[in-house]
């Protein structure tokens, strides 16, 4: 019965022709479903990968931007400290200068000094307190910087859907800030004769100079002061000292000391001088054989005088019309020594000094010179180690009466210079010791000469002179208590060099595994470096260089801030090099962040060496991955679930593969159990190194 019924049913169904199209529809639907899943799966895979990379990029860039912001804060506060420094000095000077003290060394001047000292001491006390407070704020920012960066990275990564994030370097892996004497590059030095020396190689001083200061000595290193504009107007004195390397400065001011290994230039501020002051320029060129280039374009502001000093070569060009108009007593000094050649262009006059001789050529008697002679006169002295030559028909001092025949450069005996200087025409107390003056070829003389010229010519003492006043019975002036002044914070090279590298991990997508889905999830690594924006072009960064990142400087030049050679900077990032091809290197500007390609591996030398030190690396991130040092971006804490998920990576089926494809780093977390969408194929086993 059952069988018969079943047979009947089957027969009926066999004869039933309804629903035949279902078969075709089902087959079609099957392919449709398969296609939809395939497309959906691929799209999800691709989207997830891009999302992971975007999250890593955004997090790394944001973290580096925060880091740069912290560095900017430190710099601004350092600048503020420098400003206070300068104000303290300026007030100290003004107090003494306007106190009525004549600084003649007489005891009756002591009362005036007492008043000045009292005012200065009060101001110094106040300024010191301010600087201490700023120092505390700086330390707070410095200590908080790694945490600020981490929070930013976590937040941005979480906002972009990251399930885990790791950062390199962590705070313990680098020293963010340190207090160094040269960070502000303001080293206060009560130098013996020269006044209050502030050694600096920072551009902070450049800003500070605008407000005027007492007496500054910049210790310049190679190009570290490059392209700064120093406006020393109203300052008591500026002295720029180089370490023997070449530099290219534009310095604007009317009281200027330029002093590097090969040259020395001093100008005297009109402010410090009587109503009709002379404009004096002294160029002292040492025979150290160094290559120097000084483009003191701004000296034109001083007295329409342009002084350029190239390799063993000094050019002084003087617009005599200025002297004619002002009827000033002008003097140009050129003191040279062996190995250096000095050329002095005075109108049509050409003065050249060689190691063994000096001569003057040109039309000494032409109109310009004669016109100058008719006014108050000018001395041009060129002296070498073997011969001292005073040239110029325009000398008007009675000591040199009879010298001024025009046409031929007069020759003088060696003691001409000591006699000349001992007259005290420069106002130096007692003049320069003739015994010292004879040692023309020694650097010591040049230093002393400059030291005498400046305060003496000014008829106004420096603070250091005031400090030594007690030797004459005056008040025992106390110097600023430098020990109490906090040194500015300096950003370390590591802080800038490493930048911020971020690794991002996203969970695998629970999709029907039509195609192989990476069961380890999605990884992405991104790095961002910190650099400074070039001034010349807004949109460009220079390397830490971007001081960074500057690309047009010689290789042997070091970055003023990080001490990193620019050769490193050039290899810092080829992309940055290309991008900032039109940028001009400058130490000024703020710190910014740029995305850079993440390196797959970082060599031990990279941490200290010049090459490729900027950022890190997929390998670093991977090490953290293995150690489980990944954070939940939402909380910033270790997620207990993440290590268990990532422990899969440590299984033998997974392997981190790093390498280089040309110049491009290559990294991949290889899932040998489920290879990616398409992989090489037959050579796969041979390619894997166990």
């Amino acid at each position, binding site marked *: 019965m059952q069988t018969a019924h079943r047979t009947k049913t089957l027969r009926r169904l066999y004869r039933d022709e309804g629903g035949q199209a279902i078969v075709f529809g089902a087959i079609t639907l099957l392919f449709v479903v398969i296609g939809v899943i395939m497309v959906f799966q691929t799209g999800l895979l691709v989207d997830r990968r891009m999302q992971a990379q975007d999250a890593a990029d955004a997090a790394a860039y944001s973290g580096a931007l925060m880091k740069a912001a912290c560095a900017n804060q430190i710099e601004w506060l350092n600048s503020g400290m420098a400003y206070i420094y300068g104000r303290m000095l300026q007030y100290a000077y003004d107090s003494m200068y306007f106190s009525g003290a004549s600084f003649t060394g007489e005891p009756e001047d002591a009362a005036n000094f007492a008043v000045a000292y009292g005012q200065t001491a009060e101001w110094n006390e106040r300024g010191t307190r301010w600087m201490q407070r700023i120092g505390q704020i700086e330390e707070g920012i410095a200590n908080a910087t790694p945490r600020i960066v981490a929070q930013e990275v976590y937040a941005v990564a979480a906002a972009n859907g990251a399930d885990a994030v790791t950062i390199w370097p962590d705070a313990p892996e680098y020293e963010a800030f340190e207090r160094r004497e040269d960070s502000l590059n303001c080293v206060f030095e009560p130098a013996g004769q020269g006044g209050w020396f502030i050694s600096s190689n920072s551009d902070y001083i450049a800003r500070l100079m605008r407000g005027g200061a007492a007496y500054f000595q910049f210790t310049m290193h190679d190009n570290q002061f490059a392209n700064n504009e120093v406006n020393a107007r109203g300052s008591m004195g500026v002295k720029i000292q180089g370490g023997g390397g070449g530099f290219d400065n534009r310095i604007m001011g009317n009281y200027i000391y330029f002093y590097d290994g090969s040259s020395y230039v001093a100008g005297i501020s009109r402010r410090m001088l009587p109503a009709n002051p002379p404009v004096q320029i002294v160029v002292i060129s040492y025979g150290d054989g160094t290559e120097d280039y000084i483009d003191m374009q701004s000296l034109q502001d001083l007295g329409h005088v342009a002084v350029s000093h190239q390799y063993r070569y000094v050019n002084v060009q003087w617009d005599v019309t200025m002297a004619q108009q002002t009827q000033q007593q002008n003097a140009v000094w050129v003191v040279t020594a062996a190995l250096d050649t000095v050329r002095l262009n005075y109108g049509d006059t050409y003065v050249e000094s060689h190691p063994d001789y000096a001569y003057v050529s040109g039309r000494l008697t032409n109109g310009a010179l004669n016109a100058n002679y008719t006014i108050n006169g000018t001395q041009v002295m060129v002296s070498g180690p073997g011969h001292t030559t005073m040239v110029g028909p325009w000398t008007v001092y009675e000591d040199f009466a009879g010298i001024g025949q025009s046409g031929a450069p007069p020759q003088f005996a060696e003691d001409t210079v000591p006699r000349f200087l001992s007259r005290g025409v420069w106002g130096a107390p007692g003049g320069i010791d003739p015994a010292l003056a004879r040692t023309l070829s020694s650097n010591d003389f040049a230093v002393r000469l400059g030291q005498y010229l400046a305060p003496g010519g000014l008829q106004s003492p420096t603070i250091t002179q005031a400090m030594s006043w007690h030797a004459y019975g005056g008040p025992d002036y106390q110097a600023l208590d430098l020990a109490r002044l906090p040194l500015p914070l300096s950003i370390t090279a590591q802080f800038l060099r490493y930048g911020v590298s971020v690794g991002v991990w996203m969970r695998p997508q629970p999709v029907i595994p039509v195609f192989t889905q990476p069961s380890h999830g999605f990884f992405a690594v991104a790095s961002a470096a910190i650099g400074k924006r070039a001034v010349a072009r807004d949109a460009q960064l220079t390397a830490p260089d971007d001081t960074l990142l500057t690309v047009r400087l010689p290789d042997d030049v070091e970055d003023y801030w990080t001490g990193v050679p620019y050769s490193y900077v050039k290899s810092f990032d080829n992309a940055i090099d290309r991008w900032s091809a039109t940028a001009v290197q400058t130490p000024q500007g703020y710190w910014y962040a740029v995305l*850079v390609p993440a390196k797959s591996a970082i060599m031990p030398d990279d941490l200290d060496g010049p090459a490729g030190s900027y950022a890190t690396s997929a390998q670093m991130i991977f090490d953290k991955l293995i150690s489980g040092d990944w954070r939940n971006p939402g909380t910033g804490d270790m997620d207990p679930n993440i290590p268990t998920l990532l422990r899969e990576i440590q299984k033998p089926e997974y392997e981190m593969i790093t390498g280089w494809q040309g110049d491009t780093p290559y990294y991949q977390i290889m899932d040998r159990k489920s290879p990616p969408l398409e*992989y090489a194929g037959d050579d796969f086993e041979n390619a894997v190194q166990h």
Partner: protein
Amino acid sequence: MKPLRKTDGQAMIEFALIFPWQLIIVMFIVEMSLILVGRSVVGYAAYCAAHAEVLGQDPREAASIALIPLGESASPFAMAQGETDSLPGWGYQSKWADVRAKLQVYRLYSDKSRVLNRVNIRQDIDEYHRTRFVSQHNIGVEVVFPLKLMLPLSFFEALASENFGSGFNDMEGRAFVNVNGDTYFILRERCLLPSRDRLINTTLELKQDE
């Protein structure tokens, strides 16, 4: 007329009539699925190229690596170039050379008239010329890749224009191309990413307080 009323074999006849259309429909679905998959991959390649361009890397190389799954192992174009490539850790990539031979990457830029232009980033292009466009605020890259159709669908072939062995240099304005007897669907995907300059400028505006 009893035999005429008999329905034996009717289903077979119907199947014979329906099956070609059924097959075409299924093939079309499969082909369209493959095209859509390829479109996703090309879109990912465009992203990789734009990302590489932002970072100053080679966008062509980045796009070609992403497009390896869509390449052909035995491509006459790749064989002509005689390239053998391998990725570190992944060994020899037999499809890579083919991808590079077919791939075209364009750098998008807008001129003063705000018309979106594009310039082909060729393999032999000078780095200088390539980076002339980097300073823009947005990095736009277009990746053009001919996807080889797997199934012989005659109407696709009919739509395609003949390209007699000259490679894929003339894909402009075409959806299908016939090359050496194979039909290719031209996939075009664009990706636009903010450049580093743009990010920098944004921060500059925020920080300009002087």
